[in-house]
C-alpha cells in the first residue's frame, strides 16, 4: 500500500463520513460542516492523485484544481452560513422547517 492510495482511501472515507453526517443531522451548522468535510475528502483525494506521475515532480493540475475548489468551497460555506443565520432567525432554530407559510 503506497501513500497515495492511503490518502485516497482516507479522502473517500471523509467523503462518506460527510455524506452520512449531512443526511443524519438536522442542525444546519452540522450539515454545513458535513459538506465541508466532504469537500476536504475530495481535495485529499485530488492531492493524493498529484503523486501519480512517474517523475518526482507532482502533477500540477490537481493542485490547481484543489486551489480552485477551495476557493469555491469557501464561498459556498460563507453563503451557507449567512443563509443559515437568516433561516435560524426565521425558524427560531437552526433547522429546516417543513411547514409552509400558509
Amino acid at each position, binding site marked *: 500500500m503506497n501513500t497515495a492510495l492511503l490518502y485516497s482511501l482516507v479522502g473517500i472515507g471523509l467523503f462518506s463520513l460527510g455524506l452520512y453526517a449531512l443526511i443524519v443531522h438536522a442542525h444546519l451548522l452540522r450539515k454545513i460542516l458535513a459538506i465541508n468535510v466532504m469537500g476536504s475528502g475530495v481535495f485529499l483525494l485530488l492531492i493524493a*492523485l498529484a503523486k501519480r506521475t512517474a517523475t518526482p515532480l507532482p502533477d*500540477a493540475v490537481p493542485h490547481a484544481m484543489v486551489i480552485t475548489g477551495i476557493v*469555491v468551497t469557501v464561498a459556498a460555506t460563507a453563503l451557507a452560513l449567512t443563509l443559515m443565520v437568516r433561516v435560524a432567525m426565521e425558524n427560531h432554530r437552526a433547522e429546516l422547517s417543513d411547514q409552509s407559510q400558509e
Partner: protein
Amino acid sequence: MVPSSEIPWGALLILLPLAAAILCFVWPKLAVVTGVVTMLLLTLAVGGFAWQLQREGLYQHAVGGWETPLGIGLYGDGLSLLMLAMTVLVGLAITLYARSYFNQKQARVFWPLWLLLLAALNALFLSADIFNLYITLEMVGLAAVALVALKGGRDALNGAMRYLLATLLGSLTYLLGVALLYHSYGTVDLVLLAERIDNSPVVWAALGLMGAGLLLKTALFPLHFWLPAAHASAPAPISALLSALLVKASFYIFLRLWLVLFAPLGGDVALLLGLLGAVAILWGSWQALRQTRLKLLVAYSTVAQIGYLFVAFPLAAAAGAMLWNGVSYLMLSHALAKAAMFLAAGNLLLFGGHDRIAELDRAVQRLPISTAAFALAGVSIMGVPPSGGFIGKWLLLEAAIEQGYWLLAAVMVVGGLLASAYIFKVVGYAFTRSTATPEPQSIPMGMEWAALLLAIASILLGFTAPWVFALLGIGDPFGGGAP
C-alpha cells in the same frame, strides 16, 4: 472596425455579463440599465456566435493561450449554441420582467447576481473540460441560491437552504467523480477523455458519482425532493430561472458526459434512467395535479418534464442523433414554456396576493394576458401541437414506438394527458363567472408581456424545428452524422 468574424464572441459571452455584474455591484444606481443593456448585448453576442459557428464549424478557444490540459479551454458546438440561445431567450424575458418586479433594495442584489449567474451559465455551456464544468456549475448554484433567498421570508429561506445543501452535495459528488476520472486518464478534457476511456471499475464508479451528483441537481425522480420547495418559494423571475435554465444546466453536463464518455458503456444504466424518467413523469404529473397552490403545481410539472428528458436514454442507442435533437428541442421548449408559466404565475400571485388555485378566478380574469401566457405555455407542456413540446415529444414517441418500448410510449402519452389535466385545472378558472369589480391594473405591462412573449415563442418553436436542428448539427454533438 474589427471584422465581425474576428470578434471573440464566445469569450464575450462570458466576460460581458461578468464585467456588468461587477459594474452593477459597484454602481447600484446603474444596475437596471446595465442589466438591460447587457442582456441586449448578450443577445447580439449569441447571434454573432451562431453566425461564427455556422461559418467555421466547431468553436475552440484556449483562454489566455494556455493549451489543455493546463489552460482553460472553451468549446462550442450546436448543442452549446442551443443552450446559449435558450439562456438568452429566457434571460431576455426575465430581464424584462425583473425590471419592474423588484423594488430598489432587492434590485441592488438581484442585478449583480443575475448577471453573474448569466456569466456562469454561459461559461458552463462553453466549457470543454469536466473540471471547469464543476466550477461553473458551482457558481451557477451559489448564485441561484442567493437569488432564491433574495426576497427573504420563511418559505424562501428554507427553500434556499434546502437547495443549497442539495446543490453542494451534488457538485461535491460530481467532483469526486472528476477526481476518479482524472486519476485514471490524467486529463479532464472531454475530447481527450473520450479517446482514452475504457470499461473499468473506476469508470463505473466515476459514472456513478458524477451521474448521481448531476441527477440530484437535475432533480430526477427520486432525487427531486428539494425542487418543489425551492422553485415554488422563490420570487417569480427566479423560479422561472431555476426551472428553465438551472435544471437544464446540470442536465446539459449529464448529456455531454453521457454522449462522449458513458454511452458506449451503459445499456442497463440507460434503461434505469429511462425507467426513472418514466416514474418521474407519472409521479410529477400526479403530484402537480394534486397541488392546491399554483407555483407548486408548476414546480411539480417541472419534475414531470425532466422525466421526459430521461426517457430518451434507453432509446438513444438505436435511434441516433435525431432523438437527441428531440431531447434538446424538448429542453428548449420546456425552458421557454416553464419560464412563461412561472412568470405568469408570479403575476397572478402578485395580483391576487395568494396562489391558491381554487380562489384564482378573480385574478385570472383580471389578467387575460398572463392567463393567455399560462395557457399557451401549457399547450407546449402538454405536448399538444403546434408547439415545441409537441415536436420533441413526437420524436421521443416515434423512437419509443419504433423500438417497441410500449411502456415508455404509454407513460409519455399518459403524462401528456395528466399535464393537460393540471393545466386546464388552472385555465378553467378563466371562464367562471366571477363577480369581478373593476379595479386598477396593478401589474406592469412589461411583466405580463414577458410571460406572453415567452409562451408565444414556445408555440412558435413548433414550426422552426428543421432550422434549429440544422444549427444543432454544427460540430456533430450527438455523433452519427449531422441530421
